């Protein structure tokens, strides 16, 4: 690692998520955005043909990289697939249990992994900030065996109470809560990935549990940016920052147009466990 090292919060979350992607699984992702970029990054770094389905019915495409501009409206995003179906068909496949893991972005998340992508502030009819809506996240988070959520570590995002629960985590955390709401058993959120910490969920209580923290951060630093206090793993792992190889692949090969340059720039200095965060500043365009 060089003496100084800089990446954005979004790039970090994409790189960490890519490390969690397994080669022989089937994933469900939205058409554009960080979750898809994480899968493309995992493919690029490992040369593996990691399969995913998209809500528009595209099954296992081999989207070329660099990714096309405006992916959501580009035919290239569906290219070299094994099948072009439709939304109900891929949701059937998820309902049957074929899809191992959904990878999703969240606006707000609570301690049981329920999340919001609808609005913040105000009320439903008069929101302070309205977002696109649950989209396909509700069905993906309900039907896939596991769900990985990407978000930023901020107090307004890790909340005690969601402004709106768009998609299910472990609901109120009681045993069988998802089943009582009509969701398939043995499903639920598995990891929540941020730029400086990764969380899992406790099997008994279903509460969020801190698993890994970046060496340039600390447990206190992480907890200070959350409204609720998560469980802490007995041994909290050190979360290596995005490597040169990961950032090079993301920036040069996958996203040279820089759509992952979102959030804040984090500048690091030093080496290994002595890494220090020296500056955090907003990235352009955010």
């Amino acid at each position, binding site marked *: 690692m060089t003496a100084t090292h800089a990446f954005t919060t979004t790039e970090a979350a994409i790189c960490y998520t890519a490390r969690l992607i397994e080669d022989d699984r089937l994933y469900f992702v939205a058409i554009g955005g960080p979750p898809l970029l994480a899968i493309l990054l995992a493919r690029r770094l490992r040369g593996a043909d990691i399969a995913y389905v*998209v*809500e*528009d*019915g*595209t099954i296992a495409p081999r989207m070329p990289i660099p990714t096309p*501009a*405006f992916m*959501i*409206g*580009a*035919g*290239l995003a*569906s*290219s*070299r*697939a094994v099948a*072009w*179906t*439709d*939304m*109900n068909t891929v*949701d059937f496949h998820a*309902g049957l249990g074929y899809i191992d893991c959904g990878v999703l972005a969240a606006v707000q998340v609570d301690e049981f992994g*329920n999340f919001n992508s*609808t609005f913040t502030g105000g009320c*439903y*009819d*008069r*929101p302070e900030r*309205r*977002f*696109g*809506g*649950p*989209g*396909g*996240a*509700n*069905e993906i*988070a*309900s*039907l896939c065996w596991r769900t990985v959520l990407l978000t930023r570590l901020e107090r307004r995002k890790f909340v005690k109470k*969601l402004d*709106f*629960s*768009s*998609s*299910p985590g472990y*609901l109120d955390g009681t045993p069988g*809560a*998802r*089943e*009582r*709401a*009509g*969701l*398939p058993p043995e499903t639920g959120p598995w990891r929540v990935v941020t730029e400086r910490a990764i969380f899992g969920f406790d099997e008994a209580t279903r509460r969020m549990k801190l698993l890994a923290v970046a060496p340039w951060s600390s447990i206190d630093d992480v907890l200070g940016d959350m409204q609720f206090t998560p469980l802490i793993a007995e041994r909290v792992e050190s979360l290596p920052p995005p490597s040169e190889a990961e950032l090079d692949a993301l920036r040069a090969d996958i996203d040279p147009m820089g759509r992952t340059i979102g959030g804040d720039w984090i500048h690091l200095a030093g080496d290994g466990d002595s890494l220090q965060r020296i500056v955090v500043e907003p990235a352009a365009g955010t």
Partner: protein
Amino acid sequence: MPDAAREPLRSIALLDEGDGAYRAPDPDGMRRFVRDEKDRRLVDKRMSEQDAVARFVHDGDYVSYDTNVWRRGPASLMREIIRQRRRSLWLAAKFSAHDATLLTAGGCVSDIDVGWMEVGRVINEAMQEGRVRLHEWTNGALAYRHLAGALGVSFLPLRYVGGTDVFRMSGAKLIEDPYTGQPICLVPAVNPDVALIHVNQCDMYGNARIFGPGLAPAETAMASRRVIVSTEEIIDPEEIRKHPGATTLPYYLVDAVVHAPFGGYPGTVPGLYRADLQHLMEFGAAQEQGTMDDYLDKWVFSVSSHTEMLERRVGLQKLHQLRAEETHTEGYYT
């Protein structure tokens, strides 16, 4: 072997229900409409976009479209709806794009069933002023409600929606599954008054072909009382009969066939032309700057038709460029 000890089922427990607004499903009404109003003859259904919208889109209608204005959406039909100043439409925004924004800016919309849609100043202001009501669903639940509508039943069970505020604010119900005894969610069917579907090819009778992935074009067409198809290309009915496996919609579902080359503009029709990103940025800027009236005047009201918009506002050179730059065509027309 039958389970002799089993108690006869006398009732199914309703465990919970949302309190959202939705139109009561009416499968028998749909069947009667189909019996009395839908033409089963092979007749020429080609007509202008003006006639199609005038005849089949009415104030207060529930309108469903497929896919969206960024990709193979019925953009030219949406502009005609704005031009004819339809009011109080209820939209099914299942993986919508800026479609709802466009129609809301045109003053056409009162209600939106939301799966996902582009949200900016137009929707925000319309909500704050109480001009538009949103109803939270999910993309999948909306596609699935169209499937129920297409099956001619009043509801379908599904294993999501439950446990969230989406459930609370929707027309979903949670019941005890009479077969497994486990809780399961039900969602009501939707039978839109009119569907708008942009296709790659269609004959004059309405036999239509869609190439590429879609949201729920077949379910949407089957579920809807009226179906307007806009098509990039009108093809010979004999061509349809040579490749019956390529037909997405059979003729009897379809009420109007509108020939609309570049009907998806400014979005892409994959394999044919790419999206006009410059136009999408112009749309975004107009929304951001509060100049949507100017945008609508330029692209909708100051031109009398889709053809005139293409000729006077987009221009042949741009159209050629959009076609030439859609270089990835594999899988669509081959």
